[in-house]
């Protein structure tokens, strides 16, 4: 019983593009967040740019960047931009 409770407590629910996403670990990379979001139905692609929403705005999270998640962690994933001549 205790083991099951400990195992369950590792799961954390965050928000990606306003949708709930569950992860097994609290210390994850940007890529792992996107992979979990896609697997759970968030309509993004792996090449989307991930940003962590913080009180003073957003912070870009790269695929290899590690973040420590909390239940309040909120992310925005957007398609990358392209160079263009205006």
């Amino acid at each position, binding site marked *: 019983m205790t083991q099951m409770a400990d195992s369950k407590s590792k799961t954390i629910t965050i928000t990606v593009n306003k949708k709930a996403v569950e992860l097994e670990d609290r210390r994850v990379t940007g890529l792992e967040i996107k992979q979990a979001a896609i697997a759970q139905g968030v309509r993004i692609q792996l090449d989307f*740019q991930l940003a962590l929403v913080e009180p003073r*705005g957003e912070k*870009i999270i790269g695929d290899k960047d590690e973040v420590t998640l909390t239940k309040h962690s909120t992310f925005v994933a*957007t398609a990358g*931009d*392209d*160079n*263009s001549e205006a």
Partner: protein
Amino acid sequence: MTPEVEEAISELRQAFPDSAVTAVADAHGGAFMTVDPVLIGEQWSPAETWIKFHITFQYPYADCYPHFVIPELRRADGAAPGEGIQVGVSAPDGQMATQLSRRSNRLDPSTDTAVVKLIKVLEWLRSR
């Protein structure tokens, strides 16, 4: 200004508390924005600039594009600025500027806010 544009301005001020975020209304419900200063990295000279862009009345269904920084922007190593950067152009307010042409071709109005776009443009410039 439209409520959506006003919300974008509020979010920009919240995201850049150490910068002056100035909004000048255009004639159609949008706003010409200036955020001053922003840091763009030591590979650029100077490493700090203002940045200007237009949030049109169609926001969030229209991209905030392009962005403009100081006209004297140069790479610290003397190399050419690179793709997506045009020198010697006029910003929307008529001021001479360097244009950063980063278009969001897969715009999602629900997530592509003016703040997110600005942070992405700055991240791109800092990574060059």
